[in-house]
């Protein structure tokens, strides 16, 4: 990731160091359970409920990239691309994946930032997996590798 993401990484590290989950008596399995509940709510189409639970999960486990990713998706579903980007940026600095790059692209799309959208599309393809099925999913979500229309 670029240097301008280092403050985010350091901030997340500092936040994680607070270890709020342990301070309130939770173990990792319990924190993961919150993420699972949030994911289920998102799958059920309850974006606001998913957002609430996933915010809580991220608060408890700021180093859980998947929770941030799901939170970003929930916020996109709530048409809050700015807030979605904050969550997706956290997921990206914790662990960049093609899915997160596509989510970043979708945030840029929702904000009408075409140049950023194109950069994230390229980033997503750079992180693209070998597996054909996943590549097809990537093409559906972000557009083709050669930059054609999505």
């Amino acid at each position, binding site marked *: 990731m670029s240097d301008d993401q280092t403050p985010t990484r350091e901030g997340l590290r500092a936040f994680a160091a607070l270890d709020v989950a342990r301070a309130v008596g939770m173990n990792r399995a319990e924190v993961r359970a919150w993420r699972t*509940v949030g994911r289920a709510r998102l799958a059920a189409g309850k974006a606001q409920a998913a957002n609430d*639970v996933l*915010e809580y999960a991220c*608060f408890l486990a700021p180093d859980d990239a998947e929770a941030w990713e799901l939170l970003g*998706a929930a916020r996109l579903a709530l048409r809050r691309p700015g807030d979605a980007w904050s969550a997706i940026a956290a997921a990206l600095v914790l662990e960049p994946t093609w899915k997160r790059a596509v989510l970043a692209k979708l945030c840029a799309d929702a904000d009408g930032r075409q140049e950023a959208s194109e950069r994230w599309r390229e980033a997503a393809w750079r992180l693209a997996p070998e597996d054909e099925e996943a590549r097809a999913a990537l093409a559906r979500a972000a557009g083709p590798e050669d930059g054609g229309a999505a």
Partner: protein
Amino acid sequence: MTITAVGIGGGWSATAPVDEPGAGGTELDLALDAADGVAARALELVLAGEAEFADAATHEAQAAARHAAERRIEQRAKIRELEKKIAEEQANKSFWEKLADAFMYIGAALATVAAVTASVVSFGAASAPSIAAAAATWTAVASAAAAGGAAAGAVTAGSRFGAASCDSNAANLQADVLAGNDAIAATQEQLAQTQTFAQAVVDTEDALRRQALAWLRNEDEARRVAVSVAR
């Protein structure tokens, strides 16, 4: 279309058509439809394979989460204690302490600048081993700080302090002083840039801590919301 229309039970897929723009739809309708398209693609992405997501696993997670949340009621004192501790720690920390927390090497670098300055100023009196040690420290810190050309110059200057300590003369001393000053100036500039960068880190940390404190203050509410959602 609202996102509540999206449900796994309905075999939702981003490739399936979302609501068609209404006949004679306004620009707002079209914009909302486009936003739904973005949301739909995001959800397809993160929920890939969700169709196989076992109900049992979800129920188990919900039960665990609910149980944990209910148990939290007994943990209220601990939360308050943590909140107080965070607030106290932050109140008692100076900016420089926070800075050192974020970048431990800055403190070391500042100390080394002081050490090199001292060794240049008191060159004649300083013993060779102590200067060599300062130079070695300088080398390590300069590498850690990744100061590029400035660091390379500093290392060279530092090495020279040690090697020339036994047979220095006025010319060499002057050259070393100048080289040392250049290195210090370059490093100070580097540190100034680093401080700006570190300030951003501290700001981020502060923002996150403030958010954490706000969440902690509202933990009861967060728990209530989370439990109601988990039912």
